[in-house]
């Protein structure tokens, strides 16, 4: 079944191994494409950060076809919010409020990469060394 995982700024089509209610079971390869979490002998790793997988985690299954991970169970384990519309094949995975809040409290301005009208992507980090007046507006 073709499904879509929405992350921070990405819309990632993935191939679900199985959908059971809200649970979205993925192979480790599809999980890595959707979330950048790699399934390793040390647990789930993203860059240098590794999270151990608890024994008998209900969001992991091992069977003949190999390992399967329920993205929703994993996200909840990590404190990340999930909103899903299985009928439309779409799962949105957010960031935890703790992670969002910690970043703001650090006073390091959160980086972002967004396009202009010509499609050029700009990142906040390009402006290091200059003061930035960052203004959000909307047409509505």
């Amino acid at each position: 079944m073709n499904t879509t995982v929405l992350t921070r700024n990405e819309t990632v089509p993935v191939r679900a191994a199985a959908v059971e209610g809200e649970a979205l079971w993925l192979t480790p390869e599809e999980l890595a494409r959707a979330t950048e979490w790699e399934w390793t002998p040390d647990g789930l790793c993203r860059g240098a950060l590794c999270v151990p997988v608890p024994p008998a985690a209900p969001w992991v299954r091992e069977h003949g076809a190999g390992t399967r991970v329920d993205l929703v169970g994993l996200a909840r384990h990590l404190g990340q919010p999930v909103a899903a519309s299985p009928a439309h094949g779409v799962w949105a995975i957010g960031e935890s409020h703790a992670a969002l809040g910690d970043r703001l409290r650090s006073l390091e301005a959160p980086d972002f990469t967004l396009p202009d009208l010509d499609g050029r992507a700009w990142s906040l980090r390009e402006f290091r060394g200059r003061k930035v007046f960052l203004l959000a507006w909307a047409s509505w």
Partner: protein
Amino acid sequence: MITVALDSAGAAAAGEWIRAARPTHPALIDAHYDLATRYHLVNVPSAVWIDERGRIVRPAEVAFADNRFIAYTRFDMTRYLDALRDWADKGSASAHVRPPADRRERLALPTAAHARAATCFRLAEHLHAAGHPEAAVEFFKEAQRLEPESWCYKRQAWALTDAERFYSTTFQDEVKALGGRPYYARPDFPPDAHEERAEP
């Protein structure tokens, strides 16, 4: 200066405004409200001051270029612009740059419900764009329920559809429902005897 348009419809909604303004600064478009989530923005226009080291020196606050919406801001924006010029000129020596502890205190930090709201909103705008407007309404409403303080979640959702039909409300009704409470949080400036003006 960097401007960011928060608009689910992207360039189709924000493009004409950007072209008309002929900007000489980066004028970016955020169709997924990524900036709003990162900086926990609940209304527009909102501005953040960021210093040369990439540090937030003034957290998000209302920032208009003039006083045409003073009924909503209840704040004399010429004071804000003067402060902005002062910071541009003096940098960290500006009186408008507060100590880090004060800045942290002014941050509106997201709760677990707010993080869930952002995720519901992300799903809703995707469903809308994918041609499932009625399914989208359900998740827009959930985002609005989880973070009723966010005018972004309300006004963006209303702008995508018929607000009266799908949300049984209008912007004016919602402003009235504030019952005198402010539409924008007051910018962080010392009190000024002249600033309190008419309510919306």
